[in-house]
C-alpha cells in the first residue's frame, strides 16, 4: 500500500544549482563540500551564476573543479590570488574568487595572498582552513594550532620545534587594502547560516568595488585529525576554533 504524502514544497535544493553532481571522493565527515555549497548558493543568490570566474588552488577541494558549473582557472600551488588578480583586471565586470586550502594559501602561497590583499585587488579569496594538508596525507600546515596532532606532529604541534601557527585572517585584516575579512565555520547548522551571511558580504564587497575580501571557513578533516567523523565538529571547536576565532575581523559594510 502506498501512503500518499501531504501537500508540501521543497526547502532548499538537494544540490546547489551550480553543482553538476553530488558525487565526490572526499572522505566521510569532510567539511569542504559543505563550504562549497555555501559558496555556490551565495553565487546563485547574488545572480552571479553566469558572470563568475573562479580560480582553484590545489587540495582535496580541487576534485570539485570537474563538477562546478562555474568558469574556472586552475592555478599552481598557492598562486590563485595572483592569477585572480590577472583575471579580474582583464575581466573587471566578472565576479572573481579563489578557492584555496590552508596549505595552499598559507604555506605554499602566503606572499601571493598578502600582496593581493595589500594591493586591494577587488577579488574574493575563499579559504577552507582545516589545519592539515589533507590531500597529501594530513601533514601539519602553518595554521595547525599548538598541540594539534597531525601526520608530521604526532605528539602535537610543539612551538619549540614547529613554531607557532599563522592566524591568517587576523594577519590579512591588518592590511589597508583589505576591505572585508571574516571567519566562519561549518561545524553545525547555525555556523553554516552565519558563514553564508559572511560569504554574501564578501561578494557584495567585491561587487561594490570596495577592495579585497577574504572569507575563511573552518572545515572538518576527521581523517587528518585522527578523530571519528561524528567528533569532528566538537574537536574543531576545541582546537582550531580556539585560535582561529569565528567572526567578522574587518568590514566596511554595515553589521
Amino acid at each position, binding site marked *: 500500500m502506498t501512503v500518499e504524502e501531504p501537500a508540501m514544497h521543497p526547502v*532548499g535544493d538537494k544540490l546547489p544549482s551550480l553543482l553538476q553532481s553530488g558525487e565526490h571522493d572526499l572522505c566521510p565527515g569532510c567539511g569542504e563540500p559543505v563550504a562549497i555549497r555555501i559558496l555556490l548558493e551565495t553565487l546563485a543568490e547574488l545572480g552571479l551564476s553566469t558572470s563568475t570566474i573562479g580560480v582553484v588552488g590545489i587540495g582535496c577541494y580541487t576534485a570539485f573543479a570537474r563538477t562546478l558549473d562555474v568558469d574556472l582557472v586552475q592555478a599552481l600551488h598557492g598562486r590563485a590570488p595572483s592569477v585572480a588578480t590577472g583575471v579580474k583586471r582583464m575581466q573587471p565586470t566578472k565576479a572573481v574568487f579563489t578557492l584555496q586550502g590552508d596549505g595552499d594559501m598559507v604555506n605554499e602561497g602566503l606572499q601571493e595572498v598578502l600582496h593581493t590583499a595589500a594591493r586591494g585587488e577587488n577579488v574574493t579569496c575563499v579559504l577552507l582552513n582545516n589545519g592539515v594538508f589533507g590531500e597529501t596525507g594530513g601533514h601539519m600546515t602553518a595554521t595547525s594550532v599548538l598541540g594539534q596532532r597531525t601526520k608530521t606532529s604526532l605528539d602535537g604541534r610543539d612551538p619549540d620545534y614547529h613554531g607557532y601557527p599563522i592566524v591568517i585572517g587576523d594577519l590579512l585584516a591588518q592590511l589597508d587594502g583589505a576591505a572585508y575579512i571574516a571567519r566562519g565555520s561549518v561545524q553545525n*547548522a547555525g555556523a553554516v547560516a552565519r558563514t553564508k551571511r559572511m560569504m554574501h558580504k564578501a561578494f557584495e564587497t567585491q561587487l561594490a568595488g570596495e577592495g579585497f575580501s577574504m572569507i575563511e571557513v573552518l572545515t572538518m578533516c576527521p581523517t587528518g585529525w585522527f578523530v571519528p567523523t561524528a567528533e569532528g565538529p566538537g574537536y574543531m571547536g576545541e582546537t582550531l576554533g580556539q585560535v582561529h576565532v569565528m567572526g567578522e575581523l574587518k568590514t566596511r559594510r554595515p553589521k
Partner: protein
Amino acid sequence: MTSHMVTVRGTVHIDTEGCKGCELCIPACRPAVLVMSTDVNDTGYRYPELLPGCTGCRACLDVCPDFCFEVFKYEHPVEVQVESAR
C-alpha cells in the same frame, strides 16, 4: 505498548546510497528524529533514517557533506500516531 501523537511539519528524502555514514546529520537534527540505520548501503556505510516528527528545517541538508538530503515542508502539519514502549 502505548502510543502518542506526534506533529509532523515536513519530511526528508534521503539518498541512502550516496551516504558515507559520517553521522553529522544526527546531532544537527533539532527535533532529533534522525537515527542511524543498523543496515548498511551498497558501499558498506550505515545511513540516517527518519522517524516521525520532522519540522522541515533543513539543518540536515546544510551540514551534509554528501548532498544526501532533500527537504520538504508540509503545507499543513499532520498528526501521526506513534507507538512507544513504556
